[in-house]
């Protein structure tokens, strides 16, 4: 394990950023974001970023390919920017787990090369949580916020940053940083995790086995009734990965790009022939069924949720996975 006095954090960032782009969570509570590090940029005082860390691997908008159309001819122009290595510092345990969940979608054969390239080029330095928010429930999903994964795990205790490489990529990164000293982090006693209001969430009622039962639950109607059909939950969610592929005509060429989409949107599944999810109820149900039932059904019981609590904080009408699971779960075990 390596360590670094926090007083040298700026120098540490500078060294990290010397060879590659470095992203650190910066900004005020509520608007913190992973931001390319520049001289003077400080770590956010907030626990977590407003948007999740998925953006760095699965950006909201990315160009896939260009086409040039002349008469009856089409030319395909692949001009992907060459992949550049980058480091993300300060990823929390929840967001770090989201990468595993996204990997199972994007890296399944045939792998999504845009995502894969970024994954290969990105080195993740996590940061253990010491001051969780009341909305945090990662512990209920088997994540240990005090011991996050990542290529390098990081802890801040007292005035010191401790770093532990977990992967070859991680070790290689730490190798390049001469200011790091050897050191062991002290054992931290963090009773706050036991006091989290949502720590006892029980999602054992969910998973693939009871798909039809959950799908047909009459509870959805009242859960979905006030949903505005916006995409804020999906866009701040670290595991939501629905996307759209669209063409943009610049006048001289066609840019085919991919952008985030939301299963909450009314036109998400709209076809000229009809709409399989005609009301917000079906769309709302899809999102939560996906996280609580469909994803676990096809991925060894793992939920499509990491307990980061962003949807709890961001939903305009305060409807979220905790309430949904609570309401549905209650019904199952009266």
């Amino acid at each position: 394990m390596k360590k670094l006095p926090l007083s040298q954090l700026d120098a540490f960032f500078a060294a990290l950023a010397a060879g590659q782009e470095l992203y650190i969570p910066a900004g005020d509570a509520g608007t913190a974001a992973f931001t390319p590090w520049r001289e003077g940029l400080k770590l956010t005082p907030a626990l977590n970023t407003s948007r999740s860390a998925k953006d760095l691997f699965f950006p909201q908008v990315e160009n896939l390919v260009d086409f040039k159309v002349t008469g009856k001819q089409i030319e395909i122009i692949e001009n992907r920017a060459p992949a550049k290595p980058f480091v993300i510092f300060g990823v929390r345990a929840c967001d770090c787990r989201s990468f595993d969940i996204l990997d199972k979608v994007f890296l399944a054969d045939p792998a999504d090369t845009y995502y894969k390239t970024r994954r290969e080029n990105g080195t993740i330095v996590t940061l253990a949580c010491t001051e969780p928010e009341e909305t945090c429930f990662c512990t209920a999903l088997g994540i240990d916020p005090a011991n996050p994964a990542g290529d390098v795990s990081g802890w801040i205790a007292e005035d010191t940053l401790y770093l532990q490489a977990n992967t070859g990529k991680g070790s290689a990164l730490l190798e390049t940083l001469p200011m790091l000293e050897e050191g062991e982090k002290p054992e931290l006693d963090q009773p706050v995790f036991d006091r989290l209001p949502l720590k006892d969430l029980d999602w054992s009622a969910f998973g693939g086995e009871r798909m039809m039962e959950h799908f047909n639950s009459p509870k959805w109607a009242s859960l979905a009734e006030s949903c505005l059909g916006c995409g804020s939950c999906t866009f701040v969610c670290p595991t939501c990965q629905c996307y759209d592929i669209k063409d943009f005509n610049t006048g001289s060429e066609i840019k085919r790009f991919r952008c985030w989409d939301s299963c909450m949107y009314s036109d998400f599944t709209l076809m000229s022939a009809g709409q399989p999810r005609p009301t917000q109820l079906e769309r709302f149900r899809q999102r939560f069924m996906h996280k609580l039932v469909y994803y676990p059904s096809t991925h060894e019981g793992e939920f499509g949720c990491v307990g980061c609590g962003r949807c709890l904080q961001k939903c305009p009408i305060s409807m979220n996975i905790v309430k949904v699971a609570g309401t549905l779960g209650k019904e199952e075990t009266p």
Partner: protein
Amino acid sequence: MQERIKAKAIELLESGVCGRVLGWKTGEFFYDVTPAVFESREEIERDFVFGPFCGANLSKYLIAESRKGGKVGAFLKPCDTYSFQQLQKEHRILPENVYAVGVQCGGMCDIDAIRAAGIKGVLDVEEQGDSLLVHTLYGDKSLDRAAALSERCRVCKSKKILGCAELIGEQGEEQPSARFEQVAELEAMTPEERFAFWRGELSRCIRCNACRNVCPACSCEKCVFDNPSSGAENKAPANSFEENLFHIIRAFHVAGRCTDCGECSRVCPQHIPLHLLNRKFIKDINELYGPYQAGADMDAKPPLVNFQADDPEPSVVRERGTNP
């Protein structure tokens, strides 16, 4: 207040005046209140809340609720009633199917404002006169109630309840408000500063459409941004242009109709001060075409479908001077 409202809700249901009532439903925490439709005494007694975190403007829901058949009861705060009236003017809410009860409001708190004050792990809040005692995972903190108010309530423009069948609490009045101060501050900046300010704000936009979907004025059957044949269809901000485009056009489409209810800013997950765009239009309209408050008057013609022969020329914008 809460008890009076709950009693009224039950009365409306049991007297048969309404088949269902629209109100606010308790959540996991003290602050995560959800708009909800209540259909029974039991639901109301168990889940109905009214308190300092019932910020959601229920008028938007009345568009759909007033078309579902039967009469719906709705509890509306003063600023919600402006939207309520505006939507009736636009024939979006069918007033005959709504029984509106105005509830006076002392200003709504915003959990994000509490968090912005640096308070983490908020578990509960106690109102102690002008201050709030906040219980957190990390001990108790004290905060001025004013600091916990949402921005729109800090500059509350009116406590007047409009167009309701009855009131709970006192009828209020329009009141002087500092709501245009921030707009004026921006106007006083150089264009370069303004540009930098708005780039900083709008570049955070993730186009989640929360602002649009919560907005009572944005109730189009099909939004131009969702319509492939509109020429403006746009799902995600690919670059700064599209960020600007969405917010300019959205603000323009609600100009003269926006009641300044502030929901857009309240719900923005990225904390973009969207109200500053809408208020700019309101301020301009007030200054150029005379005071106009959307929703206040059922008969007044909205400023963008109206004109005066001696309206100022568009050149007033250029003539404001280059460096104020």
